[in-house]
């Protein structure tokens, strides 16, 4: 998914599966990154507190 976004940006829309746009792939990749960060940052801080203190 991120690979497709990166590829779209570097090779152009022709490198993506037919009918898909570079913008959609990039948006999706960034959305996933944001979602993973949003979940994992609090989780990591909590785990750190528990592990260390």
């Amino acid at each position, binding site marked *: 998914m991120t690979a497709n976004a*990166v590829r779209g*940006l570097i090779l152009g829309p022709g490198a993506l599966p037919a009918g898909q746009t570079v913008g959609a792939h990039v948006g999706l990749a960034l959305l996933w990154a944001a*979602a993973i960060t949003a979940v994992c940052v609090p989780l990591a801080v909590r785990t750190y507190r528990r592990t260390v203190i």
Partner: protein
Amino acid sequence: MNTTAATTSAIAHAPGLRRAARDIVVLTRRNLLHTVRLPGVLLVSSIMPVVFIVMFTYVFGGAVQTALPPATGGKYVNWLVPGLLAQFALFGGAGTASGLADDLAKGTIDRFRSLPMSRVAVLAGRTFSDLARSTGTLTLMAGVGFLIGFRWQTSFLGLVAGVAVALSFGYAWSWAMAVLGLLVRTAEAVQAAVYIVVFPLGFTSAVFVPAQSMPHGFNPSPPTNPSP
């Protein structure tokens, strides 16, 4: 002497956010110095992505060529390099797990705890330094790819944007790997745990071959798949 003391107390009494930011900078720098001062490790870890690019280009290149879309200009290296950029951004994020586990095992984190510093800085400093390292790795990979025939088909800006997207993805995973490193704690076990997560994610994706040929469920094209 006096200035040092003044700076130290200024840091200790600076308001929360500014202090956290300073602590993050200090720890990022510390982790990066760690990398630079172990040139052996640095060398070995930069060889791996280069080996991946060269090996896959020449091993898979001939066989996969016919399945590639025309936008690659008929060259597998053009297909492979963007994919590997995404993959190694993920691998770079995985380094967070072993870095944290290492610091835990060696008591470095116990030492940090005894200092008047922000708690979040230990995690943020680690993820930032891994991000910086990934930036270096990805730049190196693009350079090596260029040497063996990789050319962007859009523009240089497209390449930069692509690297940025890959890095943001790797940075997000860096935090997930931080959780893993803190839970698993020993460096050896972390290696194994990281592979369990990273390899399925890395290979059930369009990194190496166009994903349309994969069976439903493995195909990473649907938006529900967080693979690189």
